[in-house]
């Protein structure tokens, strides 16, 4: 198994947005399943960057939802993990992170997610979990080869 050891899991924004909607709608979707799976893996930590959190809430603002409800929902969702110190932020500034391969234009809008994962790499096992195979599959192999980072769909993360 890839993640028998401790790992840092970086959720793509689509997982965060899906997570909040599924929590509010009380639907058990893929995002919530991925989150519950992470919670059960005691040695997995959730890695977040300011950019990912802002984009998550920004997407909700963008579709006209009020911010605070979702910020509070996000914090409530993460609270249990936070209490166990399992929500972490990178020490490095994403502006100083370099990606060792050219980013395809289809994935440019997810550069901050990729940079967040790289920022955590150091000595950690890191994976990106996403719901967007069409774009992320374009960088999957390169991320593994150049940065040693796994790129997984939520299904692959839950059941590798």
């Amino acid at each position, binding site marked *: 198994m890839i993640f028998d050891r401790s790992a840092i899991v970086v959720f793509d924004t689509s997982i965060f947005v899906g997570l909040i909607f599924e929590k509010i709608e009380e639907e058990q979707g893929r995002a919530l399943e991925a989150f519950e799976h992470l919670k059960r893996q005691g040695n997995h930590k959730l890695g977040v960057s300011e950019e990912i959190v802002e984009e998550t809430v920004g997407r909700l603002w*963008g579709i*006209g939802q009020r*911010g605070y409800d979702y910020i509070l929902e996000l914090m409530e969702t993460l609270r249990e993990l936070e209490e166990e*110190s399992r*929500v972490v932020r*990178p*020490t490095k500034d994403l502006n100083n992170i370099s990606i060792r391969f050219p980013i395809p234009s289809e994935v440019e809008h997810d550069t901050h997610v990729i940079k967040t994962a790289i920022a*955590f790499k150091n000595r950690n096992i890191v994976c990106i979990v996403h719901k967007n195979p069409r774009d992320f599959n374009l960088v999957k192999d390169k991320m593994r080869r150049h940065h040693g980072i796994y790129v997984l769909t939520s299904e692959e993360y839950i059941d590798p």
Partner: protein
Amino acid sequence: MISKIRIENFKSIEKLELKLAPLTIFVGSNGSGKSSVIETLAFLRQGMERKISSAYNAELVKLGTFKEVIHRGDKSKWLRIEFHTKVNKNEAERLEKSWDLPDGVAKLNKKRVEMIGYGIGIRENDTRHKALINDRTIVEVCSKEDKIFSSVKNYLPEGTLSHILYSNNFILYKEGIGRKGENFSKEFTKLMRDELSRVYYISTIRWLLPRTVQISGQDVMGKDIGSKFSELRSKGEEWVGVNGEYAIHMLSMIFGNRELRYKREKIIKWASEFGIKDIESGWTGRGLELKPSFEDPELKVVLNPASAGYGSRQILPVITQLFYSEAGSTIMIEEPEISMHMEYQLKLPKMFSEAVKEGKQIIITTHSEHLIMALKPLIASGELSHQDVAIYHFEKTRQGTKVERLRISETGIIEGWIPSYIKVEKEFLREWFKTLPTA
């Protein structure tokens, strides 16, 4: 219903034009200029019966002096306020029938009359008034010199129509002049005066409901409200007062009049929604004293509304005004959400929507995210049309107040959300983010 206002050089506003909707909402940081827009209409309203010099400080707003309201304190500038109102078919026909204007003006306004407007320009020791049809100036006069200005010079011989606007009042037909344009002037003036006389203003402080009201006594604000209210009623201006000080009078009058049963039912319904169940008001039987009561919805005891929670007390005058006022009234309310738990704040748009359906125009300032949020389901369900709502975002910049109309979709989504709320929420997120451990 006021359809448009233009403001120049008033407080933090250098130049502004706003199209108003049946429900217009002003949001933005403190001191960004939201209330200033409301104050301009209140200023015009209280100037109807007064000299301009006395209109700065009266029953609706107290603005100080010209120097205090002119943008950046620059007394060389003109303070201009203009408002427009749409006229219905009957009013347009009446106005057109009275068309005894010189040919030039008639040519100028060949189109059907759809909107009429009035504007005032004030500079130290100088005042100008103008009348507009379909957003075009038909006459502009100087109050002192009885002189006609601007484009109308080409259409009107000097001195012809100056009586549309009388020197010492904002809008007043001067009886008995009998010159050309008199009938038109009379109709025009009546329409503008009617519009302004139905403008009501309720400020943020409105919880000082008296327990009882002695008709000839003093209220908690120290005003002789009995005589004041009689005076207002005699003029047909029935208003709860800037601080809700006449709310008990109005409620007593409404509850004591069978013809007002429909209004009473509405007030009971909405007061109940906001924690004042089965409200009543009327004579105590001890002479000239009015006393209101309601049932506490949980404890089932009868209480005086002055003992209700602050949120309920704050909203009672608003409910009274909203459902007492006639269709066509413009009700301006500062922060209707004051002292309210979010549960009550969420109910406000539904109440406003009901008043809008009765033909009232509502202008509010607010800081309540809940109030804004609660618009969405009303619009999405079709209970309130997105075209009936205008949300303006105010921001104070070095150039003065900057205002942006936020787009609302047919499903009630405010596109891009509210800029100043996002700014605060982002800051809140950043602070939270800093508390996370690093890895």
